[in-house]
C-alpha cells in the first residue's frame, strides 16, 4: 500500500463529512430540547452581553451535558464542528509522516499548534 497525497485527501474528506454530520445531529438534538423548554419571547441579541461562564469551558459544557442542559448540548455540537478542521490538520500530520515528508510534518505541526493555542490558551 503506498501513501500519496490523493489518498490522504480522500481519507480526510470522508472524515470531515462524518464529523460535520455528527456535530449537526448533536446541535439539532440540543436545539429540539431547547425549543421544547423555551416558549417565551425571542431572546434579545441587540446588545452584546457575553455568554455565561459555564458555557465557556470544556468542563462547564461537559457538566451541563450530563444535566441534559439544552444550551450545553448545542455548544458541545458546535465544539465538535470546530474540531473537524483541527482533526483534519492532525490527520495530515500522520499522512505526511507515512510519506516521510519531514518538512510538511513540521508545517502541519505549526498550524496545529496555532489552532490549539486559539482553542485552549488564548484569552
Amino acid at each position: 500500500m503506498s501513501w500519496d497525497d490523493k489518498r490522504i485527501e480522500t481519507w480526510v474528506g470522508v472524515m470531515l463529512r462524518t464529523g460535520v454530520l455528527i456535530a449537526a445531529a448533536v446541535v439539532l438534538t440540543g436545539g429540539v430540547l431547547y425549543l421544547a423548554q423555551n416558549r417565551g419571547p425571542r431572546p434579545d441579541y441587540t446588545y452584546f452581553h457575553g455568554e455565561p461562564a459555564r458555557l465557556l469551558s470544556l468542563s462547564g459544557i461537559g457538566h451541563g451535558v450530563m444535566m441534559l442542559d439544552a444550551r450545553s448540548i448545542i455548544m458541545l455540537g458546535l465544539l465538535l464542528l470546530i474540531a473537524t478542521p483541527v482533526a483534519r490538520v492532525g490527520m495530515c500530520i500522520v499522512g505526511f509522516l507515512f510519506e516521510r515528508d519531514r518538512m510538511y510534518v513540521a508545517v502541519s505541526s505549526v498550524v496545529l499548534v496555532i489552532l490549539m493555542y486559539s482553542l485552549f490558551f488564548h484569552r
Partner: protein
Amino acid sequence: MNELWFALILFFSSLLAGMLGALSGLGGGVVIVPLLTIAFHVDIHYAIGASLVSVIATSSGAAAAYVREGFSNIRVGMFLEIATTAGALVGAWLTTKLPTQTIGVVFGLVLLYSAYASLKKHHEGMTEKPDPLAMRLKLKGDLPTDDGVHTYVAQRVPLGFGLMGLAGALSGLLGIGSGAVKVIAMDQAMRLPFKVSTTTSNFMIGVTAAASAGLYWRSGYMAPSLVMPVMLGVLAGSLIGSKLLVKAQVRTLKVVFSIVIVAMGLEMIVNSVTGK
C-alpha cells in the same frame, strides 16, 4: 415573536443564504452577518460568532465533494494555512478591541470587493519562471485536463503568503471565509490554476475559521440558541446548493447574488456611519 418562530425564520433565511452561497461560489458566510445585523438587529459580535461556525460547517461539509474532483493541493493549502491561521488570531483579537461601527464599515467594503471579484475574469496560464522558493517548498502539482496532465509550480510565494495573512485577518475580524481574497492570493499572485485555487481555498477556509472560532467561543460570542438555527440552515442550504449546481445558470446567479451583496455592503456602511 416567540422562540420557535424566531428559530424557524432564522433557519429558513440561513438555508436560502447557504444555497445561494454554494450556487454562486461566494460562500454562505458572507451574507449571514449582514442578514443577522440588518434584518434581525443582532449585535455584530453575536452575528460574527454564528457566521464563523456556519463557515466551518460549509467548508467541512463540502470537502468530500471537492476531494473527489482531485484538484486541491494539500501542500499548498497546508503551507498557506500558517499565514491564514496566524492572521485569523490577529483578526479575532481585533474584533474584541474595535468599535462596532469600524467593523461594520470594513465589512461593507469587503462585501463590495467580493461582489466585484466574483464577477471579474480570472487569470489562466503560466508563463513566468517558477519561484525557487516554491520548488524548495514543493508548492507544485499536476492538473488533469482534457488534453493531458499539466504540471504547475507556484510563483511569487512571499506575496501569496502575505495576502493569505490578510485573508486570515479578515476572516477572524469579520467571521467570513474570505474565500475571495484566498482565491486572489493563489490565482492572481501565485499564478496557480483557477480550479486548484478554488478547491484548495475551500479546504483552507475551515481551518482558518477554526483558528478564530476558539477565540470567539472563549470570549462569549457564541450564543447557542442563535447559532443553532443558523448553522443547521446554512449547512442544509449549502448541501442542497452543491447538488443543484450541476444544472444551475451560474452566471445569472452570480450577478443576482452580487447585486444582493452590494446592497448589503452599502447598507452596512451607511448604518455604521450614521450610527444606527
